């Protein structure tokens, strides 16, 4: 079957499924080869991008799913009476970044990096479903990891799609700058 021939069934399945579905699951349901599904997904994606359509194909949390176009957000929120979820606080964002890159990570390690106890941010992220308990460290502390909801909320196809952590590595210039900043007061004083 040509890539286009699969479009209607693919669109129907993605429309019906409320969770992201993998190409393998779609291939099994459609009783076709996975590579055909992959090709059809690609052509469906570009069809949807071409404009005039209200949905886009997105790759999130290890699967494919349809999402409404962002232009419709305001009207959708009016229709569904659904307010935006509150933004992340700085503390929540820091804890989330630590958990995302170091998972599984124990609470004391999060506190050590941030220099402050992070219990309340950990609790609200857990309640918001973005992180969850995932086993224990060898010292017996509960460890945390991100959830698939986190990947959905951040539009990530998976954890390997997190922003490249190397971009946050301090450059030697950053390091020199920080050292200099700390030393600057001393220089001024000794002048």
């Amino acid at each position, binding site marked *: 079957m040509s890539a286009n021939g699969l479009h209607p069934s693919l669109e129907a399945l993605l429309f019906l499924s409320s969770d992201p579905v993998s190409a393998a699951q779609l291939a099994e349901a459609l009783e076709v080869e996975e590579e055909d599904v992959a090709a059809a997904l690609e052509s469906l994606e570009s069809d949807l991008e071409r404009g005039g359509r209200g949905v886009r194909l997105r790759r999130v949390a290890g699967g494919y799913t349809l999402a409404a176009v962002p232009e419709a957000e305001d009207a959708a929120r009016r229709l569904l009476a659904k307010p935006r979820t509150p933004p992340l606080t700085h503390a929540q964002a820091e804890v989330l970044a630590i958990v995302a890159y170091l998972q599984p990570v124990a609470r004391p390690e999060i506190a050590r990096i941030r220099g402050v106890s992070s219990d309340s941010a950990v609790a609200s992220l857990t309640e918001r479903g973005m992180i969850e308990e995932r086993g224990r460290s060898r010292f017996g502390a509960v460890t945390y990891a991100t959830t698939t909801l986190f990947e959905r909320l951040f539009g990530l196809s998976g954890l390997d799609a997190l922003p490249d952590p190397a971009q*946050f590595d301090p450059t030697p210039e950053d390091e020199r700058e920080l*050292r200099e900043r700390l030393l600057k007061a001393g220089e001024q004083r000794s002048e």
Partner: protein
Amino acid sequence: MTSASQLELDLDVFQGPFDLLLAVLLREEISLAEVELGQIVLAYVDHLDETGEMDLEAVTEFLVLIAALLELKSRLLLPGQEDDLELGPQEAADELLARMLEYRRYRDAAAVFERIFEREAGVLYRSAPPPPELRRAALDAAVQAYEPDRLGSALGELLAPPPDPDTAHIRATVSVQRRLGVIREALREGSGVLDFDAAFGREDRFTQAVTLFALLELHRRGEATWAQKDTFGPIEVRGG
């Protein structure tokens, strides 16, 4: 302005702004072992009180710094437990810098996370149950995927008496002044004598830390003395 760099310190070994203290520490002009970190915290808390402002970023940076300084100092003062971790002043300075750089990395990542979250909040997904005729089929195909004991143990946890209440949200109201009041009251009740450990009670760690600073402050003002008969024995706080 709550930036720690604006903080003027008046310590036994050092007088001047906090920034400068960091600089001298990094240049090893004085040893971390001689610096009374408790006084820095007290000065900062007073400074916050005076300015009445709260710049979260500045306060966080101060906390990261002071936590790193505390840990480094405790390792300087208690060598031997982990011999390979014994730190000279240069290593301590390097580690302080490393700690700040590590925190910065996650602070920068957090800023990117906040932007992604904000952008993605505009993307809406359909969340509707499949039509009834398709849902029915699901039941026939369903096989056991979960252990019933998971439910039993979840219920058992819910029946268990709750742990001590989380006081994280009221931490900000703990002040050295208030802890001073509590300790003075306890001293009065105990006719001028208070067991050191009892002063801490079962408070959370932050309150305990502030309590320690309050005890140090009483000592500094000459309001109370400490006595310990045996090494590692109980410490008595006596009102002066």
